[in-house]
């Protein structure tokens, strides 16, 4: 059977996700020695990777509403590569902080994560992403059955934690992180019925 045009489109998008996620990392490798990230590339690099992770996360959260609106079930499969690339960016973001910024001062790294709220929030978000990435291994996915979906609902928490981490980290200029936070709430609002269900079942409504 020949693939339908929707299937072909989904496949093209699938490949685009991989290329689109990989290219910026290749660009970084070329741009840093050229001094394009400035005299001290660490801060720019950290921001670039952190924002990249948020972009990929939000793209992955656009998939389900889009698939529903366009009646294209094939799109759902894009969530996996988007989610894994988001984890890759978040991990690189964290790794740059450990290796290039704090430079393996483990005592300082530990202290900072515990003492600074914005780092704690970022770390929590990364831990959740780690759990989601590990459970994306097909065998584990199958073994988890219904629990998989429950676990992966935690992504909604990450969607809010990540921009809070950003907002809290900046010295001034809260507009940009504010926009990310607004997008997060919009993406959650699209799912309001499902997200509010457990709360509604607990609180009996009058009427």
């Amino acid at each position, binding site marked *: 059977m020949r693939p339908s045009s929707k299937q072909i489109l989904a496949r093209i998008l699938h490949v685009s996700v991989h290329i689109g996620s990989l290219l910026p990392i290749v660009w970084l490798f070329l741009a840093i*020695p*050229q001094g394009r990230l400035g*005299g001290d590339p660490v801060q720019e690099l950290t921001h670039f990777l952190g924002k990249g992770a948020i972009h990929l996360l939000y793209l992955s959260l656009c998939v389900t509403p889009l698939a529903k609106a366009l009646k294209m079930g094939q799109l759902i499969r894009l969530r996996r590569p988007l989610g894994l690339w988001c984890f890759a960016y978040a991990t690189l973001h964290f790794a740059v902080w450990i290796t290039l910024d704090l*430079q393996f001062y483990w005592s*300082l790294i530990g202290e900072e994560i515990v003492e*600074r709220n914005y780092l704690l929030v970022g770390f929590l978000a990364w831990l959740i992403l780690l759990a989601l990435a590990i459970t994306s291994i097909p065998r584990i996915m199958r073994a988890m059955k219904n629990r998989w979906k429950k676990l992966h609902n935690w992504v909604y928490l990450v969607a809010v934690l990540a921009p809070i981490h950003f907002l809290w980290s900046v*010295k*001034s*200029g809260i507009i940009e992180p504010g926009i990310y936070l607004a997008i997060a709430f919009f993406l959650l609002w699209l799912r309001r019925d499902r997200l509010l269900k457990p709360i509604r079942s607990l609180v009996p409504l009058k009427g």
Partner: protein
Amino acid sequence: MSKLIIKSKSRHSLSENDVTPEEVFKDRRAILKAMGMGAVGAGLAGGTAPALAQGFFDSLFGQDEGPERKVRTGKPLDFENLQSPKPDLKLTPEIKAITYNNFYEFGTQKTDPAMNSKDFQVKPWTLEIGGEVEKPTTVDVWELINSADLEERIYRFRCVEAWSMNIPWIGIELNKLLSKVKPTSKAKYVAFQTLYDPEQMPGQKSRYLGGGIDYPYVEGLRIDEAMHPLALMVVGMYGKTLPPQNGAPLRLMTPWKYGFKSIKSIVKIDLVEKMPPTTWNILAPHEYGFYANVNPKVDHPRWSQASERHIGEGAIARRQPTLMFNGYEEEVASLYKGMDLRKWY
């Protein structure tokens, strides 16, 4: 403070008309060299190594020398090196010091000021000194630069964001400037103000670009801090006048304080009786105090101040411990005798 003075004319005298038009730094190549990329070529051939390395990187990354990659530097200055003993500090490469800047008037990214200040007009420039003084004065800054006995000082520079550089500044002691106007007994503090010109400073025009700060930028010192011989009115760096991104034509340098105290492109100095408002303190009073002395024992609420990333040679800054008063404890600690530095951060 015992000061052994060695006089050494570092430049031949230049009148303003003699100097060549302002130099531009070819950003990319210089950065390559500064980042130690020259080492790649060094193994190939001794003398022409940098050229070879540049050729190697050009062929690898292609040519890109459009005008937008050029960075403004200043004109050569006439100064004397009066600092002695010379501090044992390895200088930050000039290209890094002039392309990694916090000057939100030109944008909040570190690379923004060098990019967005290329056409910044620094001539003419007048500085008003007034307030509680006997002789309020309007200073023609370029006349000052050309007539004052300028000296070079190599200072540590420590940003509140926990990075640092070692920079050769050129200027005159602030106390020399202030004593000319004869402060009265009411002059307890000194208030400084940056130029307000939204047409030239895009960060002042747009709240988004300017990081949500209310401009003009204002800073202040206690009078005894301002009179301290380490407090320098800076007009140049690396042997040249200041480039716009570093606060041309006139900025403050108080090396024992976090960098945000060292206000740039100053147009007004007022001697006042009460502690003046300061920009970062207005924005986040629990994070940035009036004193802002470098102190490894008092953390910023959101990050440790115990260590810093030192931006020197090499592609990646290395972490080093932060020194009390940024290494100037011996000179300035007496200014704060009996003060709780945890309270007066």
